[in-house]
């Protein structure tokens, strides 16, 4: 190892994927029956990959820690999924989607991967509609679209605010069909605790049955990790409670390089933190920014009066409000990309203009949209001389059509009616662009170990544009991995079933058992959450929305100390021989305590600002991110060498042959 071979095909960009598919080795359908594949994770990436691999004829085993594959975290995605269909005729194309994605990612993603993503994006929609995914439709019966942050065309397909749910149910249904046919065996409430290598190749996993507590061995010819992102490292995030890095981290420890760990997306429109007891943050989909306008009071004293409850936002007139995104970025306004919108919100709140008790919130206001839609409705329904209240009612109905479930979600949490008073929002950790390093075939640096969806580092660069994670998960699962994996498996048609009674499996199982025992033997008094919250605080304060060398160095030290304390003092009640949620959490937090340190190390190494990584030392006089293409146009890929502090940096230089690297501006 040591050299990173991205295996990008040669030739013109637009032909690469077709050429690659034509040239890679295939497995004869009759031989696929003799090949087993393990897919860990049943979200959009894993679910779609498992269904397609089974459809192609491989024997597939799937794993997830939830009680049903349908509950994977992809279910929570709200806004939509991109595809370059140009159904709206607004000038969209594969090239434009490719270009927006590369630019949105601050030129830190691999050109050929992103082009392929844009290319297969159109198939995703066709596939999902054929499966019965109920996307939003226009009155003429055709598919509807909306736009998302960072782009100027409407290419986002959606199903109200529940796009992830509908897409996941589609992939889950496709899985169910294969389960019924006997081609997929689904293991639910099972957690992968280690990866097993035989002769340097990924040949299986060790999993724990979370109900019986039993440690199991599962072998296969290849292992696909589609285990999602690691944003729960921050404790407070928009992720589901169980999201973790365990599988990816175990693979990393066995030789898979971990790429760009510090590239984390902070999403601008989340419900703000309300108190210390809070366990998670809730996203308000970015699609709301199509109709909502973001503002804070212009005057400090108004902001203060609002915080003290003496003034209501609705009492401030237009001229007393600072629509700071529209002011700073006239071309994109409220639709600037997430990193830009998040930093701008932080900047206003840091300057004292925050609008909730803690001073960490800005307004997302729908009143203008409500009135606009209301007027339109009144006109088109032939109503004359209507008063403002009626217009407002009509407008609220339209807004409810579009975002009803999000408004309901908000009201349940905050206890305020967002139709009547502007929503309060603040940035929160939402997505991790980093992950396992993969080549063009989605293979990690361990032969036979693949990574798909949010678990790989692939296509988003330093910042992810909205509606592109679902696209990437499904592209990987339905259209990329099932073909590229054949290239590797074609050597395995005569291998036969992989035995589980080998020395390698013995050793991996022993490792896992030792670790569980060690976790259970902690003699202290602190719960797992105690450590998780502490880690989260360090991460948010020192590796969060903005970073500097001094604090990153402190974070590295503090995390290492916290890790030591954890292993000496964590207290896990109960036994490992049965269901034990504290033990499950402990295993996940133990990994976060290692990843966190590598995260900070990666952020410290990258002396530039780009995308989700904002280093205070590197900014323009106007406070915009200052990228350094000369020295940092690379993927950082870390090799495990023992302690996270010893990790070795490898660089994959990013070459842009088809795009001119420019300063990213949304002005």
């Amino acid at each position, binding site marked *: 190892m040591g050299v990173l071979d991205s295996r990008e095909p040669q030739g013109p960009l637009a032909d690469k994927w077709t050429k690659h598919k034509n040239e890679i080795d295939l497995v004869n359908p009759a031989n696929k029956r003799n090949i087993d594949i393990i897919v860990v994770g049943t979200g959009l990436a894993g679910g779609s990959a498992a269904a397609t691999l089974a459809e192609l004829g491989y024997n597939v085993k799937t794993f997830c820690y939830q*009680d*049903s594959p349908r509950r994977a*975290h992809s279910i929570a995605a709200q806004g939509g999924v991109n595809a370059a269909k140009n159904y709206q005729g607004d000038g969209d194309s594969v090239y434009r989607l490719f270009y927006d994605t590369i630019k949105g990612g601050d030129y830190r993603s691999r050109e050929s991967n992103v082009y392929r993503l844009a290319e297969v994006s159109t198939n995703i929609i066709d596939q999902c509609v054929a499966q*019965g995914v109920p996307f939003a439709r226009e009155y003429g019966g055709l598919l509807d679209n909306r736009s998302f942050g960072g782009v100027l065309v409407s290419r986002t397909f959606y199903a109200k605010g529940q796009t992830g749910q509908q897409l996941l149910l589609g992939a889950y*249904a496709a899985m169910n069909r294969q389960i019924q046919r006997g081609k997929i065996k689904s293991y*639910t409430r099972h957690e992968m605790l280690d990866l097993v290598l035989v002769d340097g190749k990924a040949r299986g996993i060790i999993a724990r049955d979370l109900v019986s507590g039993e440690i199991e061995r599962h072998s296969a010819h290849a292992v696909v990790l589609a285990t999602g992102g690691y944003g729960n490292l921050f404790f407070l995030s928009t992720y589901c*409670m169980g999201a973790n890095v365990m599988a990816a981290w175990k693979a990393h420890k066995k030789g898979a390089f971990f790429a760009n760990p510090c590239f984390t997306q902070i999403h601008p429109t989340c419900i703000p933190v309300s108190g210390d007891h809070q*366990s998670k943050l809730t996203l308000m989909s970015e699609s709301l920014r199509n109709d909502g306008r973001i503002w804070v009071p212009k005057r400090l004293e108004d902001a203060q009066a609002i915080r003290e409850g003496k003034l209501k936002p609705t009492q401030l007139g237009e001229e007393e409000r600072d629509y700071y995104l529209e002011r700073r970025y006239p071309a994109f306004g409220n639709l600037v990309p997430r990193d830009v919108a998040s930093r701008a919100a932080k900047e206003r709140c840091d300057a004292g203009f925050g609008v909730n008790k803690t001073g960490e919130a800005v307004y997302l206001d729908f009143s203008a949209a409500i009135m606009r839609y209301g007027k339109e409705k009144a006109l088109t329904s032939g109503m004359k001389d209507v008063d403002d209240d009626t217009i407002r009612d009509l407008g609220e109905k339209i807004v409810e059509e579009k975002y009803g479930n999000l408004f309901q979600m908000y009201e349940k949490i905050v206890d305020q009616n967002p139709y009547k008073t502007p929503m309060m929002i603040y940035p929160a950790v939402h997505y991790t662009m980093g992950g396992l390093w993969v080549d063009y075939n989605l293979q990690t640096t361990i032969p036979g170990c693949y990574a798909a969806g949010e678990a790989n580092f692939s296509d988003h660069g330093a910042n992810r544009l909205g509606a592109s994670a679902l696209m990437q998960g499904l592209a990987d699962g339905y259209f990329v991995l099932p073909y590229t994996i054949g290239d590797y498996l074609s050597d395995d048609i005569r291998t036969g079933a992989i035995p589980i009674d080998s020395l390698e499996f013995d050793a991996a199982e022993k490792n896992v058992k030792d670790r569980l025992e060690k976790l259970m033997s902690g003699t202290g008094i602190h719960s797992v*959450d105690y450590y998780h919250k502490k880690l989260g605080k360090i991460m948010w304060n020192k590796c969060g929305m903005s970073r500097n060398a001094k604090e990153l160095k402190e974070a590295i030290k503090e995390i290492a100390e916290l890790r030591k304390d954890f292993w000496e003092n964590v207290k896990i009640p109960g036994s490992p021989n049965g269901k034990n949620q504290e033990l499950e959490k402990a295993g996940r937090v133990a990994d976060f305590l290692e990843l966190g340190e590598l995260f900070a190390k990666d952020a410290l190494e990258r002396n530039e600002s780009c995308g989700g990584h904002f280093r205070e030392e590197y900014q323009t006089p106007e406070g915009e991110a200052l990228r350094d293409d000369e020295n940092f146009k690379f993927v950082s890929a870390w090799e495990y060498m023992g302690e996270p502090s010893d990790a070795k940096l490898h660089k994959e230089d990013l070459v842009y042959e088809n795009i001119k690297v420019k300063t990213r501006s949304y002005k």
Partner: protein
Amino acid sequence: MKLYLKIWRQKNTSTKGQMVDYTLDGVESDMSFLEMLDILNEELISKGEEPVEFDHDCREGICGTCSLQINGRPHGPDSMITVCQLHMRSFNDGDEIVIEPWRAKAFPVVKDLIVDRTAFDRIQQAGGYISVNTSGRPVDANAIPIEKDMADKSFNAATCIGCGACVAACKNASAMLFTSAKVSQFALLPQGRVEAAERVENMVRQMDLEGFGNCTNTGACEVECPKGISLENIARMNREYLSASIKG
């Protein structure tokens, strides 16, 4: 707030369970119900006791994992929400709150408040899909226009999160609302019509095999469903089933 909790504790499927009393102080009104349980668990752990296990994941009302029977009602007192969306402002200082797992023969208790809902997965495996090849090249999506009204109805049925509250609410532990939502989603779309008859027969057969009770049109399921899945779906499923059996 100070609360008096009565919580069902059960070690595993094969042991007997019982109600246990807990007193919890310092609960704030803007906590979610699950955050309240987190605090209880922190207290239990610090005393060296085993925390109360309950199922949850997204904590925003969409994954369908959380499943608590609170004061006799699935997902608690408020309507149209899941437990993770329930906030303590719905309770008062000094309240007694009874917390139990879903009760149904087809949902055996795994531990404490966690039940096994894999029967729902098996119902869907029996036919809750459209048999389209995932590795093929399907027709262009807009070549299948769908009337907005139908698309919306199908979407509404598809919003079922598979939580099982309908079963827990039903005195017969019937899974009709859930199964009918799944049947409806596909029955309303042109793509799903082709194998509609087979689908409804297989899914209903599996539902019966799993040991769910019969529907006696009480409607408790609709009242407790956090996603507002309507009884219309049951009527539609019955029609689908009838016409399938006549054809069959």
